[in-house]
């Protein structure tokens, strides 16, 4: 009996140290979410102005741009999947991967081939384990994405989109459309895996409808509308990707905080349970010892009485 008390004590101890770790991770995630949210907010003015500029050009010039042209018969699609680098974030990565699988199925159902582009080590590991080929993967920044990374990803995706399918010499795999799957940060409690089509671009006026006072003026373009659009649209794409990465980072941290909070709570409960069992075992041990002593004394007394 004494042994099992010791066993339970050891378990309590290890659970307690685990609890310390999960608690620390919870606090770290909580403090980083605020930073991640601030970064997302700081990036908002750029996205807003860029969207304004793009809609200005799109409204006042009828320039067709390669990035906005709908291919007549889309055969190949690229998907950028934004996952995390590290685990211990609950269902964060698996839910975004599930959403991605759904999109892949849907695109395959429409008769399109799918090329995978992955950001985050978890996503990379997921597809590698299943021996599915990944066109390109970017890792190592999932909780603190920088604009440079977004620009790099954007450049790769735009290159794939603009590449000519017939041109077999180029080493870029051509695609007809580009989708992004990421986790939208709605609140601390809810994050939602979302799939959006990035290319060909549909120029929309931001998320909110422009009000009357916000009517766009007649712009002069320098050097020319098409050239402005040429340099504007790739940046617009990159800023959309940056937005997705920032949202994903905030979601990842929120998911991790939630997961670690429930882990800490579970550890608390486990400790309580073990303590109860350990105390029971301790009391059972004491009771047994007493009854053994009493029994022993009685036996001795009986033996003495018998001999006299």
């Amino acid at each position, binding site marked *: 009996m004494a042994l099992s008390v010791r066993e339970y004590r050891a378990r309590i101890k290890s659970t307690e140290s685990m609890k310390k770790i999960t608690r620390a991770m919870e606090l770290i995630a909580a403090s980083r979410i605020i930073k991640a949210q601030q970064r997302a907010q700081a990036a908002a003015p750029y996205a807003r102005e860029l969207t304004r500029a793009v809609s200005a050009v799109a409204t006042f010039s009828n320039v067709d741009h390669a990035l906005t042209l709908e291919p007549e018969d889309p055969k190949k699609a690229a998907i950028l999947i934004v996952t995390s680098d590290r685990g211990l974030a609950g269902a964060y990565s698996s839910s975004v991967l599930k959403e991605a699988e759904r999109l892949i199925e849907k695109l395959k159902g429409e008769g399109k081939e799918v090329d995978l582009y992955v950001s985050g080590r978890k996503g990379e590991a997921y597809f590698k384990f299943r021996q599915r080929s990944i066109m390109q993967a970017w890792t190592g920044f999932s909780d603190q994405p920088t604009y440079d990374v977004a620009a790099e990803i954007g450049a790769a995706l735009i290159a794939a989109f603009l590449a000519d399918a017939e041109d077999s010499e180029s080493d870029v795999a051509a695609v007809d459309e580009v989708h992004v799957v990421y986790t939208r940060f709605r609140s601390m409690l809810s994050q939602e895996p979302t799939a959006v089509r990035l290319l060909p671009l549909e120029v929309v006026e931001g998320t909110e409808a422009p009000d009357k006072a916000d009517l766009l003026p007649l712009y002069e373009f320098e050097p020319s509308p098409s050239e402005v659009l040429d*340099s504007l649209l790739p940046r617009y794409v990159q800023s959309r990707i940056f937005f997705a990465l920032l949202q994903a980072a905030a979601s990842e941290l929120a998911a991790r905080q939630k997961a670690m909070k429930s882990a800490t709570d579970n550890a608390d409960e486990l400790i309580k349970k073990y303590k109860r069992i350990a105390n029971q075992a301790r009391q059972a041990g004491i009771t047994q010892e007493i009854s053994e002593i009493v029994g022993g004394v009685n036996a001795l007394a009986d033996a003495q009485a018998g001999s006299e």
Partner: protein
Amino acid sequence: MAGSSDKVLQVELVAADRLVWSGQATMVIARTTEGDVGILPNHAPLLSSIIEGVVDVQTAEGETWIAAVDAGFLSVADNRVSILAERAEMSHEIDLEKAREELERCKAAGENDDEAQEKLRRAEARIRAVERAS
């Protein structure tokens, strides 16, 4: 916004990851692909691409702010000027030593492709921004 500020420009200098500077100004000078442009209040709406260079802002209080920017855009409408660049730094944020080192490195590398040229121009712009400000 247009009604309240007939004589000043409302300027926003925005980098991809943050708002670098915003405030009121009487004049903005930036370098577009076609050459330097100066923007005064009541300028006609304009949308233009800018190249790596220095942006000069004269504030309503008579101060001059100088910033180094990457390639990006300039949009003017309704006395509102927004300058968008992937990277932008105010002159007082730039570390001159580091910028000089960067320039030396770019020159020493001696590469001639677009990327190297861009880096070189960026380094030069940063140094120019600091020198103009001081």
